[in-house]
Every structure is written in structure tokens, then in C-alpha cells.
């Protein structure tokens, strides 16, 4: 449904986004996760046709975003981070205007407006002036606007920003419901947000994709792979062969510091391999200075990926 290939955006020589590649299937909810300024909004703006990419391709519902922007725009509902609301308009008038703008036929407009009022739960404020609504209601009017023409693809930039916890839960449920039939891309810099709603997660940092994972992969990490951190003296190459024989160790990463080598062992969940490691080190004639266990949460994964440490 959404096929992004090597998409880049430069502002003059400044890189905003470079070589971003990912795909999303029909009905999938994809989360763009990254710290502020990572380029999430830039990616969304390219997909929605707000501006053209410097290079690369993207197709939405089979249409190229550069060659057939109007066809793409017809199929997209977009909630920008800065809510595109005309503050002096009444909610229903605003939604009717958007419906007209998005090409909803005259006969269906009233029906669609009623439908999105219900979906976004803003029926009680439908006759009020948008500028006088609270932030939470404004956010929901913004969401209603994105849904008005029943788009196949929804692109939501920070959809729960500025909402209270109860509203956040409601919006998440709504997004999940929408996901069944539509493809949703949402962005967030808050991890639980993405891990709770999205099936596929694309982690972005400094304009590049640093990881693409599905819900299951991240859940595994969230549940906590156990890690063992070891500091040893001597050449770790001697022990490599022994380490590889230990069952349940998925990977070893190392770095040298002050004459000691610090090794990190990624282990399968719930397995304790400390004893095996101990024997492996001692048998290879090395000395252990320190051994400790650490669990890695999804927050750690995210932080590690976005702060460019080694490993993971």
C-alpha cells in the first residue's frame, strides 16, 4: 500500500532525511518513532505532497507521489502536527468545507460529516467555534478532518500530543479500529505510544532509518532480553570459540577500554548463562574483572539506536 524507497530531502546542503526506505501493507499500522527533529514530519510531508522529495521514490496505493500527487492526495487523510484549523469557523461548517475540498460528492457530505463527528466523538461541540474549543477537542476535530473522505491511508503526525491520558487511550483505540481497513502511518517521539498501537515500527534518527521491526520483535525486546556484561583482562579472541559454543547466547559485542575488554552477551530470554561464560573465560586463560546482568527494555533499544552506541 505504501512503498517508500530511498526517499531523501535536503534543504540546500542541510540533510533533513536521507535514504528512507520502508513499506506498509494494507490495514497495517506503522509507527515512525524518533526523537524530536529526526525527520518524521519531513517524511510525512513528502508522502502527503506538502513538498517534493529531493530524491527517491514513494508510491501510495500504487500512485507515485511526485508524478500523480492529486491521485495520492485523494487517498490520504492527513493530520499535521500543527492542527490545520480555521479558528473562526464552526466545527460542522469546517468539516463540510474540508469534505468539499477533498471531493466528497454533495449528496454524501452531510452523511460523512455526521459519521466523522461520531467517530472522533465531537458531536457535543459540533455547533461551536473551533477557536474556542479545548486542545483535546481541537485535536479530535483535526482527526475528524483527516477521516472526512474515508481515505485508504491515514497519516497522523503526533496524533496524541497535548491530550490528557484518558483522551490518549480513546485516540489509540480509535486508531486501532481504523487500522483494520486502512493503512495508518503515525509518528511519535514517545515509545509506549508507538509500541501500543503499531504493528510495525520504523525508528528514525538524524534523518535515517536505524531500525525496522515488527510488534513481535519489539515485544521480545520489551519483555527483556537478558544481557550479561563482562569485563575481562587479556585477548578476548582466545575465548571466542568457546563463547560460540554456549547455547542461548545470541551475540557478543565488545569494546576495549583501559586495557580491559568489555563484552556484552545477548542471551535468550530467561536463560542464565553466567556459569557457562565463567568457565569459558577461565578455561581460555583470561581473568574476569566484573560480571553483571542487565535487562534491556524497549526504551534502551530506542535510546541505543538513536544515540549511536555500539551494539544492538
Amino acid at each position, binding site marked *: 500500500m505504501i512503498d517508500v524507497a530511498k526517499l531523501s530531502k535536503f534543504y540546500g546542503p542541510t540533510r533533513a532525511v536521507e535514504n528512507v526506505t520502508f513499506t506498509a501493507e494494507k490495514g497495517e499500522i506503522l509507527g515512525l518513532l524518533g526523537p524530536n527533529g529526526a525527520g518524521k514530519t519531513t517524511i510525512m510531508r513528502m508522502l502527503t505532497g506538502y513538498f517534493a522529495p529531493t530524491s527517491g521514490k514513494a508510491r501510495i496505493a500504487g500512485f507515485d507521489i511526485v508524478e500523480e500527487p492529486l491521485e495520492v492526495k485523494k487517498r490520504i487523510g492527513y493530520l499535521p502536527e*500543527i492542527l490545520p484549523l480555521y479558528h*473562526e469557523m464552526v466545527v460542522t461548517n469546517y468539516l463540510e468545507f474540508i469534505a468539499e475540498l477533498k471531493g466528497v460528492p454533495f449528496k454524501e457530505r452531510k452523511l460523512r460529516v455526521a459519521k466523522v463527528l461520531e467517530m472522533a466523538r465531537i458531536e457535543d461541540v459540533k455547533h461551536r467555534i473551533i477557536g474556542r474549543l479545548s486542545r483535546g477537542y481541537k485535536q479530535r476535530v483535526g482527526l475528524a478532518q483527516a477521516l472526512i473522505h474515508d481515505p485508504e491511508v491515514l497519516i497522523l503526525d503526533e496524533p496524541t500530543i497535548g491530550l490528557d491520558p484518558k483522551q490518549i487511550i480513546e485516540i489509540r483505540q480509535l486508531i486501532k479500529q481504523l487500522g483494520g481497513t486502512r493503512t495508518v502511518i503515525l509518528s511519535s517521539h514517545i515509545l509506549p505510544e508507538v509500541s501500543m498501537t503499531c504493528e510495525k515500527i520504523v525508528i528514525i534518527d538524524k534523518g535515517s532509518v536505524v531500525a525496522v521491526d515488527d510488534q513481535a520483535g519489539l515485544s521480545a525486546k520489551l519483555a527483556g532480553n537478558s544481557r550479561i556484561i563482562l569485563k575481562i583482562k587479556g585477548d578476548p579472541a582466545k575465548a571466542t570459540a568457546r563463547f560460540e559454543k554456549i547455547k542461548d547466547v545470541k551475540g557478543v559485542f565488545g569494546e576495549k577500554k583501559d586495557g580491559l575488554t568489555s563484552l556484552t552477551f545477548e542471551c535468550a530470554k530467561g536463560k542464565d548463562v553466567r556459569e557457562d561464560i565463567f568457565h569459558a573465560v577461565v578455561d581460555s586463560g583470561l581473568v574476569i574483572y566484573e560480571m553483571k546482568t542487565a535487562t534491556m527494555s524497549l526504551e534502551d533499544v530506542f535510546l541505543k539506536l538513536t544515540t549511536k552506541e555500539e551494539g544492538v
Partner: protein
Amino acid sequence: MSKVWAIAKREFKNYFVSPVAYILIVMFVLIVGLFFNFLYVTRFSYAQLDSIVYNMTNIFMFFSPMLTMKLFSEEKKLGTIELLYTSPVTVTEVVLGKYLGSILFFGVVFGIMLQFPAFVLIYGKPDFWPMVSCLLGFVLAACTYLAIGMFASSLTESQMGSAMIGFALVIFFWIVSIISDNIAGPAGNWLGNLSMSKHFIDFLKGIVDAGNVFFFVALSSLFVFLTIRRLEWKRW
């Protein structure tokens, strides 16, 4: 086209949301009325439209940037421009819609202004067609002001800024003839042809010259086109 109309309708209604439009209309009617009283009632008992239309056109020059300053500046500031850019409408449709909206509002102003020719018709015996020619000149000049003002509005996020730029541009195209009169040769001639006032004056005399009509249509089209280019600049 239906989308042009949707945008125009919203823009037109938008004028009546804030009190600014009402204040502008009242001020415009008051000032033109004052001139009308002075020129037609107390002094000369004049039965032609040219002098009141001349004043109307000059006064509207000061009002037009205030009518157009919001068109794009506000959208940019509020971020609603993102909605327009990401909707299935072309930039051309957006610009035409906005322009049409401002012309519709001008239509209301023009409707109110028609009282002055009506008074002249009721109380005097004017020649009918020269009146039409005067009013046509007013409409053409006003639409050109609006196009120039809309372009100014696309340049900056600040409404005040766009009003200033719009005003400066309109003034330039109005009085450029004064500069050109002091330049001899073809350069002066060429510059003089850019002047709205030179092309406007014939309408007041009751002469509808195709060249003059074309000038106003071309100048408005140029600024509509420049607005489109400005909004597409650095995006596509």
C-alpha cells in the same frame, strides 16, 4: 472548478466573521459619500460619474491591501496552508479560489457603491454609457489591486507586512507614470505603459479601449500567476 468555488465561498464568508470587513465597508462608504456630497451635491451639481469614480478608485487603493492581506499570510501563520497543499486541489485552484473570494467581497462593496450612480441617475440626466465605462474602469482597477494584494500576501506570514508590500506595489503601478514622464525616450514610454492611471483615465472619458481592458486583465493575470509560482517555489 467546484473546488475553486469551495475555497472562494469560504474566503468570502470569512470576511464577514471579523468586524474588520464591516469597518472597512463603512469607512469606504463614508469617505466616498463625503466626496460625493462635496463634488455633486453642494458644489457643482454635476451629472457625470467620472470624478466620483476617480475618487472611489483612488480610495479603494488604500483599502484593497487590507482586504487581501489575510489571504495567504494567515494560512501560513496558522498552518492551514498545509491542509490546502495536501488536499486534492492544485495550487492554481487554491489561488483562483482565494482571488475569486476577494472579488466576491469586492462585489458587495461595489453593490453598495452603486448607490452613487443611482443618485446621479435619479436626480440628473447623465449619459448612460459613459457611466458604464467609468464603472467598468473601477471594477477592472479594483480587481487588479486585489491580485497585487494577494501576491503580496503570499510573500510573508505577517499580515501587516503583506498589507505594506501590497500597498507599495499598488502605489507603484498607479503613479509610475509620474516617474516615466520625467524619463525621455523609449524607456520612459515603456515605463509609462505600466501605469494603471494612464490606462484608467480613458474609462473616465467614456472610452472603452480594448488595449486598456487588456492591460488590466493582463496585469491581474500576471499577479495571479506570480502568486501561483510563489506558492510552488521551493516545494516542487
